[in-house]
């Protein structure tokens, strides 16, 4: 079932002539993880804001095309320190901020908060003051705050930017679990090596338009690697002058190497 649909979407930020998005069409289905890749300024963050319904409603600007959502969306922005409520004494309060704004009964809020804290493995931080957290801890708290609101559509902008490798792996695993539970996930990440394990589909954005879309194998495409957006293994394979499509993982490269490419 389609959870998010963008058809012919173009978006202009206020006081700009050049669109940040141009004629973008994209679907995300329930239980699917779609990853946006692109260079800085390609439009991935803007696309997430449009998908969340925040652009142009909060950002201002002009939108053309149609955006359809069948589920409530929750977006995680890339700077966790600007996403705290500023109204919480503890991490528990911070995670509960969103559910409380939804007007849920207190018992339901408590259940959702405990669940979200557990899923992000931050139960031990529950009584900490959010201002004392590290960037990585805060990033997990912000993700937990969105998860606690139980959105059907998750929009994640660089969700692992502040995390250490172990923390990033935990978040990627969690995203797959959430998709298996029926959440639709649209994410933008520069952690290209994680995408093959996490994403069902990849959308390559360039200068505000969709340049290509397809399975994760797209990250082994010669053009994608040429734009610096391929997986590390694919880049090495390409630099070695081996034939495309390039492998995305070490395991795949080893298999193909064993077969004499």
């Amino acid at each position: 079932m389609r959870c998010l649909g963008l058809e012919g979407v173009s978006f202009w930020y206020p006081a700009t002539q050049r669109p940040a998005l141009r004629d973008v069409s994209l679907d995300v289905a329930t239980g699917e993880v779609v990853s946006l890749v692109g260079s800085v300024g390609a439009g991935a963050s803007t696309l997430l804001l449009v998908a969340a319904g925040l652009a142009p409603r909060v950002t201002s600007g002009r939108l053309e095309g149609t955006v359809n959502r069948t589920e409530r969306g929750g977006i995680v922005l890339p700077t966790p320190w600007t996403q705290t409520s500023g109204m919480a004494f503890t991490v528990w309060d911070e995670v509960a901020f969103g559910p409380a704004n939804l007007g849920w009964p207190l018992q339901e809020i408590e259940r959702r908060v405990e669940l979200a804290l557990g899923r992000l493995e931050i139960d031990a931080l529950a009584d900490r003051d959010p201002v004392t957290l590290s960037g990585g801890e805060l990033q997990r708290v912000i993700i937990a705050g969105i998860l606690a609101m139980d959105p059907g559509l998750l929009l994640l902008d660089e969700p692992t930017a502040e995390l250490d490798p172990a923390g990033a792996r935990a978040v990627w695993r969690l995203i797959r679990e959430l998709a298996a539970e029926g959440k639709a996930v649209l994410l933008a990440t520069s952690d290209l090596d994680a995408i093959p394990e996490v994403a069902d589909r990849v959308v390559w954005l360039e200068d505000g338009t969709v340049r290509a879309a397809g399975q994760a194998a797209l990250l082994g495409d010669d053009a994608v690697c040429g734009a610096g957006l391929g997986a590390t293994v694919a880049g090495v394979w390409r630099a070695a002058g081996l034939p495309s499509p390039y492998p995305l993982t070490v395991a795949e490269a080893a298999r193909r190497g064993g077969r004499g490419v």
Partner: protein
Amino acid sequence: MTRPHPFTLLAIAAALPAFAWILDAPAGAAATSAIALALTLTAGIDPRTSPGLRPGLGASAGWRRGLVVFRTAILTAAPFWLFLLILHDVATTVAIGLRITTMVASFVWVAAAVEPPRLVEALVASRWSASVAYVFASTLSALPQLSERARRIVDAQRCRGLSVRGGIAARLRALRSVALPLVLSALHEVDDRALALETRGLGPGVRRTSLNPPPDSSLERVLRWGLLVACVALLARKVFS
């Protein structure tokens, strides 16, 4: 020690300036300004209202913060006295100056003493819209947040060779290097925070669930109504006498 309800703190902060203007000067205004300035000294006693202070630091840190709040009130009120002295005679300067000092000290005290999260909880428990409560509480927390941001910017600029010492010209140059980043970063963060709050359900007309409403004793309610009644009674006496 039970912390006073945020509404009680706001009521005291509103009543003191009202008394200062209603009561005869200079005695009435001297009394209210003395009370307001004394309150500023108590602003740091509860560590939960003191950003950067932790409970383990003990009471002396709290009193030191109280002195900072007291000094802020005095330094903010001082320029008003200077202007008044230029414009009026000594008696008028004292009369109006004490009243303005009461207003300034009350505001500085309440901004330091009221915990914005508790205020939001109290407002939400009183069935205010969450977004209105948030705006109200954000106003109170703006000053300390800007002050903290300015400190970080000064530190960052010092790393780049900025000197905040020296004569007036050097200090003005330093101020320029701090003010612009302060304003621009604050504006940028406002945009980001608006997006974040919106996605976390804080929109117009939201009826938020109160997570932990601060206790409001009948004694405090009586105190607040008493302050209101006293203000009205004193005002009526002043008008009709």
